[in-house]
């Protein structure tokens, strides 16, 4: 007998759906609550707002330094 696609899918869907045990689930929940509290703390909100500016500044600074290093190397070869 050939098991067709539908039969295969039915067998797979009949597999029991498992869950975390209660203790582990509770531990995860508590950890997530802690993370939630941190994420809405005023400090982290400010960091999130400034993040794009900080990244852009760091990027610009790095490019400037790279340009300076290349300029120095070029001068050294002259």
């Amino acid at each position, binding site marked *: 007998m*050939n098991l067709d696609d539908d039969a295969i*899918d*039915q067998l*797979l869907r009949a597999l029991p759906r498992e869950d975390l045990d209660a203790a582990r689930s509770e531990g995860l929940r508590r950890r997530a*609550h802690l993370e*939630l509290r941190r*994420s809405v703390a005023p400090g982290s909100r400010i960091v999130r707002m400034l993040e794009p500016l900080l990244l852009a500044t760091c990027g610009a600074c790095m490019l400037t330094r790279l340009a300076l290093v290349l300029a120095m190397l070029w001068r050294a070869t002259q």
Partner: protein
Amino acid sequence: MPGESEHALIERLRQGDRAAFDALYDLHRARIFSFLARMTGRRALAEDLVQETFLRLVRFAPRLAPDTRLDVWLLSVARNLCRSHYRWSALDRGSLIALKRREDDDPPISPFDMTSARELERRVEQALGQLSFDMREVVILTAIERLPNDEIARMLQLSPEAVRQRLSRARKLLAKALQRGGHDSLHRTVPDES
């Protein structure tokens, strides 16, 4: 909260509402854990990865679009975490998942049928565990999680045709593996979804 839409819960989660997190966590936890357990074949690893998945939900909640399909988002995150782990460690792909059955959820059936059904489940789990990671994820996302093909293609960064081909190969391998073990139990216990 009863009957609250998922979008409303996500919005409240963005404000740091713990009750909203609890509601979303209870809604999706078992599904994500089951997915990870079948992908990894290791309960302890699946527990670690499901924890990381939901912590990422908390961290990325402010950036979620209002119309995000959270089930797909969570499965994507879980799948990517699993793949990252798979790349960096040797997983025994042939191992069986030793998961505790929840006896109280089983409908009353005869001891013979119970044994037969469990044996079939064991064989299906084993056959699934023997597939490659790529094939296993496509089969689980299609057959068990019932995601549409285009959604899976987006998640796996493949074309829909590539997903279909992978799925077809996976089903053939599963059929072959299951047929090797005999047909009688399959006739008796394939569930009728009508």
